[in-house]
């Protein structure tokens, strides 16, 4: 904690130094104080919260869609090896394609409203979840399976007591990456179309040549990302308290 505080102070100091001593143009790099004033301004203006709400709805909506689709895809592909082999080229292609390039297409398909942003967020958040769940479904320990079979466990019991608990940590690992990707998807979507959301505010600040506000909105977006990620991490601690990764993180 102390280390982080020192580091942040150092960063702010360097920043202020660059502006006041090296005389970097205030348009390229506004002073920290100016950004701070803009941040207060942004946070206190009622219009901002409408944009925050729009972005949040897009991020959470896209994340939810990705979670459902990703889990379903991961489970099916994990269970059906031939289907996984058959779809592997498509998955690889989907992995390497620059997905934000689809934003204009999504605007054509879904319009300038929030739907195209939700779809973009979902597309970005989908793969980390699907691939992790796929791995999780495959990771059921052979010895554990022997225990269940030795006890004559049925399909439902095997799922409840073995497969679900094995896969759950992988779901959360994917979700922690996915929530960050969903923020990226929504904001990039807002850059390129529409008239609401924090991404739109960024573009509007740019057009007004208001650099401090631009930086302030980025700070606000970062805070939103941190809060959302913390929410997923907390859910993980509650859902899989036994998991080693969680324990290490706590210590």
């Amino acid at each position: 904690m102390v280390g982080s505080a020192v580091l942040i102070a150092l960063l702010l100091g360097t920043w202020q130094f660059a502006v006041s001593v090296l005389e970097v143009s205030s348009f390229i790099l506004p002073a920290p104080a100016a950004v701070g004033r803009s941040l207060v301004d942004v946070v206190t203006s009622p219009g901002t919260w409408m944009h925050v709400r729009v972005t949040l709805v897009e991020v959470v909506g896209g994340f939810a869609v990705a979670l459902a689709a990703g889990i379903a895809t991961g489970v099916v592909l994990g269970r059906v090896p031939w289907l996984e082999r058959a779809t592997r080229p498509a998955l690889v292609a989907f992995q390497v394609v620059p997905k934000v390039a689809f934003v204009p297409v999504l605007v054509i398909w879904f319009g300038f409203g929030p739907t195209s942003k939700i779809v973009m967020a979902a597309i970005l958040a989908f793969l980390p979840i699907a691939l992790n769940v796929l791995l999780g479904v495959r990771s059921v320990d052979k010895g554990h399976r022997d225990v269940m079979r030795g006890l004559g466990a049925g399909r439902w019991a095997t799922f409840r007591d073995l497969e679900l608990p094995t896969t759950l940590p992988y779901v959360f690992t994917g979700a922690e990456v996915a929530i960050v990707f969903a923020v990226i998807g929504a904001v990039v979507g807002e850059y390129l179309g529409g008239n609401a959301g924090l991404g739109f505010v960024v573009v509007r600040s740019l057009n007004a040549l208001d650099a401090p506000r631009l930086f302030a909105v980025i700070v606000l977006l970062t805070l939103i990302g941190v809060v959302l990620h913390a929410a997923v991490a907390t859910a993980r601690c509650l859902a899989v308290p036994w998991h080693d990764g969680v324990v290490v993180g706590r210590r």
Partner: protein
Amino acid sequence: MTTDSEALERTRTGAVAGLRVTAVDKVFDTRRGRVEALRGVDLSIGRGEFVAVLGRSGCGKTTLLRILGGLLAPTRGTVEAGGRSIRRPDGTRDDRVLSDVGMVFQDPNLFPWYTVADNVALPLKLRGVGRLERRKRAEELCERFGLRGFAAAYPRELSGGMRQRAALARAVSCDPSVLLMDEPFGALDAVTRDRMDLELQELHDAAGATTVFVTHSIPEAVLLADRVVLLTARPGRVRSIVEVPLARPRSIEVETTAEFGNAVRTLRRLLDEDGPR
């Protein structure tokens, strides 16, 4: 030493306590070709009997145990409990014939997401025993297997010996009539292993489950078993069956007696005759 079908009778739970293996072959098709693991294994195990299966590494001991537990299907031959095959025609285990079997593996195989109590009570859960009753039984079992105070702990907080105790407690939690154990104490230190052996003997004397115990330790086999079944190197066949003429209960001091020494010598000679590897 033969145990005929009269011995293979039903126990109080309606399940079967004796096992009969007839002409079992097991061939694995691996990437590097066919591996013959077992050939023509015949074996009768009486109700309540303690049989140790002894052999060198890779002789098919584990394979035999997995076939007995219904985890593997034999390539040829049958495994019967009470005169009925433990497998359905489609090859899956018939739980009407063999359901109350407890298995202990080389690894404890405890579920890291459950506490020790929940692990121990897992077989009860699968049988539909209610939560309160399960908790009560789990507490009793933890007490009995030296896990007092660890019921609420997770497996990763236990030592290796305690994990294997928990695995043993889980295996006997629903009072099985057949107990199958695959080198359960192989990874433990010598002192812990001796203690676990004696505890297992106590458990067997009290509960009387038919027990098949796979090991590669000759002294451990002699200490525990009524009969020791010796398997040859691959493919595994029954080399010979040696009765252990030691009275029960046996203490660890029995290892210094002449009878014990004789039994160990006999088994060692038989294993050596199997040829060097």
